[in-house]
């Protein structure tokens, strides 16, 4: 009944919209406290309107309930989620499934950055097709070398 065990269970909880990465990879799971068999997990939404938060909360509770009798899930907004919290392992998993991981975040936030390379062929000659993609956290880009379109997790 340790904090480490809770983190291990969380690492197996996939994000509902990006199922190749976990809520830990994405930095959605922020904190774990364990006291007297009771585990309190703190999660944070990526975007304000993220429609997956209820599902994530349910999934986290279900995963932890396999080993903990008493599970509480808290949602916090501050500090605001940033793509800087996506782990290196999470970035590799995204790229491996054809989704370009976020580039460096610019300050002040004048740009959402751009993909470092095409996740399919590795070329760096890229263009943005649409500022908004299949989920709130992504934009749609295209590789000008292999011509394949791909999702890009916007630096945020």
């Amino acid at each position, binding site marked *: 009944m340790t904090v480490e065990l809770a983190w291990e269970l969380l690492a197996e909880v996939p994000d509902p919209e990006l199922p190749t990465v976990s809520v830990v990879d994405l930095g959605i799971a922020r904190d774990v406290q364990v006291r007297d068999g009771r585990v309190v997990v703190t999660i944070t*939404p990526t*975007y*304000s*309107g*993220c*429609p997956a938060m209820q599902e994530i909360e349910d999934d986290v509770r279900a995963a932890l309930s396999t080993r903990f009798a008493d599970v509480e899930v808290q949602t*916090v*907004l*501050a*500090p*605001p*989620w940033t793509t800087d919290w996506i782990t290196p392992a999470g970035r590799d998993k995204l790229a491996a499934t054809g989704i370009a991981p976020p580039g460096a975040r610019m300050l002040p*936030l*004048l740009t*959402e950055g751009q993909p470092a390379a095409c996740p399919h062929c590795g070329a760096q000659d890229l263009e943005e*097709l*649409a*500022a*908004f*993609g*299949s989920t*709130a956290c992504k934009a*749609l880009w295209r590789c000008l070398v292999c011509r394949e379109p791909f999702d890009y997790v*916007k630096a*945020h």
Partner: protein
Amino acid sequence: MSEPLLRIADSCLVLTQRLTAWCGHAPALEEDIALANVALDVLGHARALLTRVGELEGAGREEDDLAYLRDAGEFRNQLLVEQPNGDFAHTVVRQFLFDTWSATLWPALTSSTDEVVAGIAGKAAKEAAYHVRHSGGWVIRLGDGTQESHARMLAAVEDLWPYAGEAYLDDAVDVEAAEAGLVPLPSSLAGAARFRLEQVFAEATLPIPPEPYWQRGGRQGQHTEHLTYLLADMQVVHRAHPGATW
């Protein structure tokens, strides 16, 4: 003291309802998805603030009670957001006028003395910055586009301009809340918002109209008739089937 937050929340909620009407109807697939995504973010802001309003007033109302069980006279949104979608130019101009306001408001609201509100604002500020670049890009593309798109943008600006000032007019409620540090004074946002608007309009080759009498009253509960029809659409299911769940 929750009234100034309700004004912001209602503006977000009513605009969301307008934007969702574009779903499946936008001029291009990419823009259909963009409008829906913007609406999703702005709905997130509305929900978080409405929840906070309910907590502060302490009468046991939750976000759904506030969204679905109030009549038009109890809504505190600015008149701009309840104006009809019109053609795509009208939607773009309305969105850009809203975004110049919200992209200025949220960063200022991160210093709210209410920690929950400051937290909501911290997230919203990043999202609104993205929205205003997107809507500003459309203002430029259509304003500095074809003769047809330019003419339509001129018509949209003419129609919506009288509603562009209300968000920056202070009343006694605003002054009291600003002195308490809950929200910034609306007029304190005008300069930065105007600066962004002038830059984009110049690039779009759109003249900024002279200052009219600013239409006002929405933030005090006096609305155009459009809001009543909008709310009828938005609230009918919840009111016809109280307590229903999916």
